[in-house]
C-alpha cells in the first residue's frame, strides 16, 4: 500500500470509528445535554473529516463531473474556454458533433474557433472575433473566416415537379471571410448588415453518389461546372418581439432582407429579396401555442444567373420537413408553416403537430397555391427558456416519412 493510500485509509478508519462511536449522553438528564452531546459528536466528526482531508491529496474532478460541466457550457451564449457546439456543418449533413474554444480579450469581446464534423463527413471550421454590446448595447460587431465541406449535397433539378431522385449530388466546398454588424435602434427593432467574401469550389460528391454533371446540363443546373467567388452583401431589418429567437411561445418576427451576390468573375452575380413572418399566438395562458410562419425568397432580376447551389431551396428539417434536404430548388420559393404546440412541461418540453406547405418556381408569378406541396408531422422539443437544443420530428410528405433531429427551433 502506498504511503498516501495508507494515510487515506487510516483517516477513513478514524472517521468511521468516530462516527460509529456511541454518542455518549451519560448523565444527560436534560434535553439540552442530549443535543449538546450530539453536536459534540458531530464536531468530532468534522475534525476527523478535516484531518482526513488534510491527509488526502486534493482529488481532481471526476471524468463524469468534467463531462457534465463541458456539456453544460453548450447551453451558454458565449462560454469561455472549450465548449460543445451544437450546430450544423451544412444542411443535410446528418448527426454532427462540434466543439470550440473561446477566449475573451475584453469584457465581451472574444475570439473563438469552432469545428464541426458530421456523420456524412461534412466539415466546418470557423474562427470569429465578436465584439457585442457597443453603443449602450445597441451595436454588435463580428468578423469571421471559415471553411466548410459539404460532401454530398442532393440535387433533384429545378422546379416543384422535379423528380425525387436520391442519388444525384454535388460536393460543395466554401471558404469565407467577412464582417457583420447588428444594430438595435430600439428594443424590438433589429438591423443587420454584412459583407462576406465567399469562394465556392464544386466537385463530384462522396459516398458513391452520381455526380451532377452525369445527369444535368447547364439548363437544368444553371452554373454547372463553375466555382465562383462572391462578394456577398446582406442587409436585413426586422421587428422582433419574441422573447428569444430559438424558443418562443409569444411574440413575432417581421423581417425583410436583401442579399447581393457580386461574382468576381462577373457572370453569376444576382440579387435576392427575402421576407419572413413568424408569429406565435398563445392560447389560454400558453397552454397551447399556434405558431405560424410565412417565408418568401425571390431572385430579383430575371436576367441574373443564379447558380444551382445558391438557389432558394425547400426541403429538410427547417422548411418542408416531409421532404429531403434541398429537395426543391428554383429562383423563387414560398413557404408557409403552421404548428399546434402543446406545452407538456413549461420548463423543458413541448410537443407539436405541424403542417408545412411550399413551392419553388422559376418565375414569381408561377407561385400558385394549387401547386404547393405539403407535409404534416408531429414533433417533440426539449427546450430551455431561450433555446431548443433538441428537436425530434416525424413528417409525412408526398415522398415518404422523414425523421428529423434538430438542434434549433424549426422557426
Amino acid at each position, binding site marked *: 500500500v502506498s504511503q498516501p493510500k495508507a494515510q487515506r485509509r487510516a483517516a477513513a478508519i478514524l472517521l468511521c470509528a468516530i462516527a460509529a462511536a*456511541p454518542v455518549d449522553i451519560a448523565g444527560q438528564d*436534560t*434535553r439540552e445535554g442530549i*443535543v449538546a452531546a450530539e453536536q459534540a459528536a*458531530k464536531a468530532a466528526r468534522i475534525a476527523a473529516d478535516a484531518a482526513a482531508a488534510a491527509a488526502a491529496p486534493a482529488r481532481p474532478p471526476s471524468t463524469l463531473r468534467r463531462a457534465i460541466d463541458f456539456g453544460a457550457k453548450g447551453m451558454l451564449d458565449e462560454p469561455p474556454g472549450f465548449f460543445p457546439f451544437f450546430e450544423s456543418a451544412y444542411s443535410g449533413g446528418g448527426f454532427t458533433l462540434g466543439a470550440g474554444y473561446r477566449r475573451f480579450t475584453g469584457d465581451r469581446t472574444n475570439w473563438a474557433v469552432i469545428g464541426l464534423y458530421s456523420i456524412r463527413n461534412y466539415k466546418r471550421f470557423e474562427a470569429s472575433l465578436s465584439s457585442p454590446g457597443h453603443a449602450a448595447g445597441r451595436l454588435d460587431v463580428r468578423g469571421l473566416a471559415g471553411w466548410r465541406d459539404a460532401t454530398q449535397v442532393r440535387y433533384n433539378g429545378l422546379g416543384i415537379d422535379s423528380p425525387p431522385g436520391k442519388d444525384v449530388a454535388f460536393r460543395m466546398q466554401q471558404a469565407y471571410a467577412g464582417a457583420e454588424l447588428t444594430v438595435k435602434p430600439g428594443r424590438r427593432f433589429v438591423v443587420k448588415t454584412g459583407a462576406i467574401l465567399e469562394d465556392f469550389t464544386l466537385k463530384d460528391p462522396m459516398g458513391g453518389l452520381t455526380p451532377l454533371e452525369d445527369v444535368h446540363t447547364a439548363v437544368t443546373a444553371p452554373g454547372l461546372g463553375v466555382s465562383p467567388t462572391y462578394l456577398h452583401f446582406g442587409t436585413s431589418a426586422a421587428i422582433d418581439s419574441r422573447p428569444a429567437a430559438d424558443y418562443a411561445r409569444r411574440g413575432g418576427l417581421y423581417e425583410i432582407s436583401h442579399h447581393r451576390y457580386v461574382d468576381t468573375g462577373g457572370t453569376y452575380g444576382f440579387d435576392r429579396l427575402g421576407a419572413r413572418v413568424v408569429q406565435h399566438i398563445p392560447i389560454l395562458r400558453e397552454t397551447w401555442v399556434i405558431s405560424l410562419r410565412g417565408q418568401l425568397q425571390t431572385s430579383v432580376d430575371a436576367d441574373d444567373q443564379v447558380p444551382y447551389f445558391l438557389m432558394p431551396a425547400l426541403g429538410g428539417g427547417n422548411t418542408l420537413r416531409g421532404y429531403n434536404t434541398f429537395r426543391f430548388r428554383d429562383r423563387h420559393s414560398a413557404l408557409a408553416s403552421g404548428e399546434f404546440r*402543446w406545452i407538456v*412541461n413549461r420548463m423543458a418540453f413541448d410537443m407539436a403537430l405541424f403542417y408545412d406547405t411550399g413551392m419553388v418556381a422559376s418565375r414569381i408569378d408561377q407561385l400558385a397555391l394549387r401547386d404547393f406541396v405539403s407535409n404534416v408531422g408531429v414533433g417533440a422539443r426539449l427546450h430551455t427558456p431561450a433555446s431548443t437544443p433538441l428537436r425530434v420530428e416525424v413528417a409525412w410528405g408526398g415522398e415518404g416519412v422523414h425523421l428529423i433531429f434538430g438542434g434549433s427551433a424549426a422557426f
Partner: protein
Amino acid sequence: MRTRLRPIGVCGAVGVLLVTAVSGAGPRFLADDPVAREPERQSAAGATIRTIDPTVDLVVNLLAHPGDPDSNALAHNVNTIDEVPDSSWFTNRIVARPMTAQEIGRGPGAGTGPAAGTWTVLSPTSPGGAPGFIVRDTGNRQWSLAFDVKGYPEAATGAVAVASRILWAIGYWQEETHIVTVARDRLMLEPSSSITPPSGKARRMRQDDVDQILRQAHRGPDGSYRAVAVMTPPGRAVGTFRYYGTRQDDPNDVVPHEHRRELRALKVFGAWINLIDLDARHTLDTVITEGDRATIRHYLLIGSALGASAGGPVDFDAGWESLYQRPLARRRLLRLGFVFRPWQTVPYEEHPGLGRFEGHVFDPLTWRPRAPTAAFLSARADDTFWAARRVAAFTREMIEAAAAAGRYSSPEARKLLSDILIVRQGRITAAYLPAVNPLVDFALSADGRLAFRNAAVDASVVPAPPGGYQAAWATFDNATGQAVSIGTTTGPQGGAAPAALPATPGTFVRVEISAVGAAPPAWTMPVGAYFRRNASGWSLVGVERIR
C-alpha cells in the same frame, strides 16, 4: 441512569429529537423540557463557503425526492409541547409574544434604511435576478439595492419589502429591508468597485457599467429609480443551505433540514405569500460570532413573492404547479394539452404594481413552489397546523402595515394587496386549522382547573363543538410511560380535574381532550396534554397532537 444513542449506520448522520426520549428506556420528559431554545454549543468558526449549484439543486428537488424517505415523521426539532424552539433558524415572534402592526410595518432592524448622502457602489448584484448593486452608505453599512425592471414599477421591490416583513414577523431570519428612491448622482464608485463581465475577468467598475445596469431598471418620471434596499446580513457568508440533510461543516446542525418544522411550515407560509422560490439559491448562511462562540445563522432570501418576480409578474401557473409534475406532464403529453387547471382561467388582479396575485381561487392545499423541497414534501398536519396558527395570528392591521411597507404609490394597490392576503389567510386557516384537533395553550391550575383554547374556533373557522370537550385524566409515570386513568370529565373546558388528581411535586398527569358532539372528524382524536406538578402548581411539559 445512562442513556446512549447510537448513530444511524456506520458513518451516517444522526437525527436528534427534541420532543421524545432518545431511548425507549429513558424518561419521557427531561428536567428542562420543554426547551425554549435549541442548544448550539459548538463553534462553527471553521465553516467555509459552500456553493450549491442552483441547477443541480433544482433538478434534484424536482426529480430525486432527496432527504428522509419517511415523509410522515414528526418534526425532529419541535420541543415536547409541539413548538419550535428559538434557534439560528427561527425566532418565535407572532403567537409567541404580542406584536403590533407598527412593529411588523417596521420589520427587522431599527433603522430607517441606507444613510442619506451618496452611496458607494461596490459591485453589481448577482446576475439572473433584478438589476441592482451592492452599495455602502455613508454610515459604512452595506446594502443590496434591487430595482424594478422596466415596465413593472413597484412590483418586485414592493413584493420583497412586504414578504420580508411577514416572514420576519413569523420568525425567520430577515435583514432590514426598505424601499428607497435612488437618483443617479447618489451612486459613486471607488477604486475597489468591481464587476465581473461576461469574460469572467473581474475588473474595476466604471460609470458606464452603472449606467448599463440602470438602463434595465424602471425609471420614474422624475428620473429616479425605486429600489428595495436590503441590509447585508452580519457575519461571514458561507454559502447557502439545502432543504434536506444537514450542513456538513456546522457541528450544531444535527437535525436534517427536511425534519425542521419551520422549513416544513414554508408549505403554508409560502402559499400565503406565494413564495415560489423555495430553493438553496434563495437562502444564505452566515457565521455569527458572539463572544467566543460562532454559530451559523440561516436566512431566507426572497426571490419571487406575492405576484411579482425580479423580471415582472410571476408566471400564470406560479404557485399552481411546480416546474415538473410527472402525472400532469404525462396527461398533457397524451391529451394534446387538454388538461385543465385553475391557473388557466383564474382572474388575476393584474395591477401593474402587484403582478399576478389573487385569493379567491387560491387553494392552499394544492399550492406548490417551483420545485417542492424535501421539507415541503415532509410537512405533516401538525406542521401545517402550527404554521396556520401563525398565519391566523396576523390581524388586518398587521397585514395592512406589512402591505404599507411596500410603499405602493397607489392606495388601491396597497388595499388590493391587503385584501388578497386576508382572503388567502382565511383560506389557509380554513384548510389547516380544523384538520387536526386544534387545541392549544393548555394550562392546569393548582386547584385542578383545566384551560385551553381552540385555534380554529378562535379564528372563526369552525364553531365550538356544541357538546364541549371530554377530558380523560390519567396519572403518568414519566419513567415507564405508563398511564393510569383517574377519571373522565366533560365541559366547555373539559371540566374540573377529578378528585384523584395527585398533588405531589414531581408527579405527572396526562389529559386527553377531544371534542364532543358535532365537530370536524379530526377533533374526536384526542390531544394529549402532559403536566408536571411543581411546588407552586402544574406546568405544561408535553403536547401530543398526532400519534
